[in-house]
């Protein structure tokens, strides 16, 4: 059977502005609708009493829980503490990871010397090191920050090092013909070539840093959102736990989004969303 394949302009070609705007609206709507739907289902489950609403408080009970935490200032305190810890730890770890990642990506000798050792450390659950850090840095902020930094460091280090090593030989050779020194090779070739992949690593590390934060605060139980979650659990103030969990999720999301936006400022030569798949 013969048929005619016709190629005509589609919506995107005929109304480019409108199509793009429409996609933006769709994207934002979908992004909001999914969590809203999730909350609705959760509420429904509680209302229908499919689960015990005391053990699994519905979203409608989080409002009062939030108000209580807000009034005595504990929520603000905990959030400020947690955000401060995670940002400090992340920055320290990310800077170290980027620097060491580049140094190792650019030097075969450094790689040979440090790679096996680093991989071994990478696989150690950092929470297992908490007692050591508590002994060294004392009970409180410093230990938390350092432990987050160490965790972030390993994620960033690996992504930076592999991104640098994956820079195609052709790019390096073209630069060698221009007789670049190491700094110029870094500045004009390796850094920009590796940047998109580095930002993927930085985004993953942003999520991991929040995971780590809550884990540590859970264990040492001194301050912060992790502490609120843990305290809510032990005192059976489950609304408190849930409010803190939602807040943690929000912070993690905003953090990763921030890193993504910063990445987009630096990587301007690439289309953001160009994955083509058969529809």
């Amino acid at each position, binding site marked *: 059977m013969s048929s005619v394949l016709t190629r005509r302009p589609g919506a995107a070609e005929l109304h480019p502005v409108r199509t793009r705007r429409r996609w933006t609206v769709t994207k934002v709507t979908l992004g909001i609708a999914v969590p809203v739907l999730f909350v609705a289902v959760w509420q429904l489950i509680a209302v229908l009493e499919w689960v015990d609403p005391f053990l699994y408080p519905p979203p409608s009970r989080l409002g009062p829980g939030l108000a209580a935490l807000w009034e005595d200032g504990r929520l603000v305190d905990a959030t400020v503490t947690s955000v401060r810890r995670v940002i400090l730890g992340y920055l320290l770890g990310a800077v170290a990871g980027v620097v060491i990642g580049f140094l190792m990506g650019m030097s075969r000798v450094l790689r040979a010397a440090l790679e096996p050792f680093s991989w071994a450390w990478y696989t150690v659950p950092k929470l297992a090191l908490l007692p050591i850090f508590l002994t060294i840095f004392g009970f409180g902020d410093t230990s938390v920050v350092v432990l987050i930094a160490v965790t972030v460091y390993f994620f960033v280090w690996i992504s930076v090092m592999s991104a640098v090593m994956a820079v195609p030989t*052709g*790019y390096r*050779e*073209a630069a*060698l*013909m*221009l*007789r*670049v020194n190491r700094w*110029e090779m870094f500045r*004009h*070739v390796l850094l*920009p*070539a590796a*940047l998109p992949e580095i930002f993927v690593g930085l985004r993953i590390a942003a999520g991991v840093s929040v995971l780590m934060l809550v884990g540590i605060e859970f264990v040492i139980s001194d301050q912060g959102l992790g502490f609120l979650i843990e305290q809510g659990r032990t005192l059976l103030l489950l609304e408190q736990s849930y409010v803190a969990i939602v807040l943690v999720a929000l912070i993690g999301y905003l953090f990763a989004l921030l890193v993504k936006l910063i990445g987009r400022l630096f*990587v301007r*030569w*690439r*289309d953001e969303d160009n994955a083509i798949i058969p529809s």
Partner: protein
Amino acid sequence: MDQIDHLTAPGSTGEEKPAAPRITVRDATRSFVTAGRSAVHAMGPMDLTIGDDEFLCVVGPSGCGKSTLLKIIAGLLAPSSGEVAINVSGEHRIPIAMVFQDYGIYPWKTVRANVDLGLRLTGRPSAERREIVDDWLARLGLTEFADAYPGALSGGMRQRVSVARALAIDPEVLLMDEPFAALDAQLREVLQEELLAIWQARRRTVVFVTHSLEEALLLGDRVVVMSARPGRVIADINVPFERPRTGAVRTDALFAKLRGELRTSLQPQVTAQFDAGKDKR
């Protein structure tokens, strides 16, 4: 990458053209050892001298080691045996420029920034650089795309960016690896003429790899034919057409005759290389 640094000093100091050749390839070979496979003998032994300000074209079957030869001259690869010597004046920070077969331009730099890069690295003042870059962009028909990223360019345009970047450096030795391969036939002729004019106005040593015999005869002072892998020189002909030349030489009777000769020496090599590739499976 150190080979470039121990180049011999120029032989003579006077204004007289030195009798010594610009590039000497002496008994050079290159093998590649890749994990899990026996060594590939890619090139040589090869002997070749390239005079100062000579335009040498290299033709040969695909995979015979032409890019390998250029990379050895460039200092990006060391020869496995033998030696390659290049005379440079020592006045240029970048004495040798190369146009890569796969472009070698940077997607994170705009067209202008790509062409500018070599000049920028030599530390020239930016006003001067701008003038030079604008000039080369115009000559290669890229002005309109000066601020575009290479991702938005066609293959042929990217290759022109690569050519512009090499020419903007104004090197003593220019290595070009099939620089016009991705261009359509018409644009190719335009750029051949442009390159002829550029080179005839300001001569320098050029080693130009191409698959097109016409291109080789039009541009070159000399054409070298390489054998099937491992590539050696099997023919070396002088192209007698007067300079300055134009595309008009294509219609010369001698042009057709030389092309026939080149084809005759090249054809069995192409077949041999192709059959060798088949036998491997």
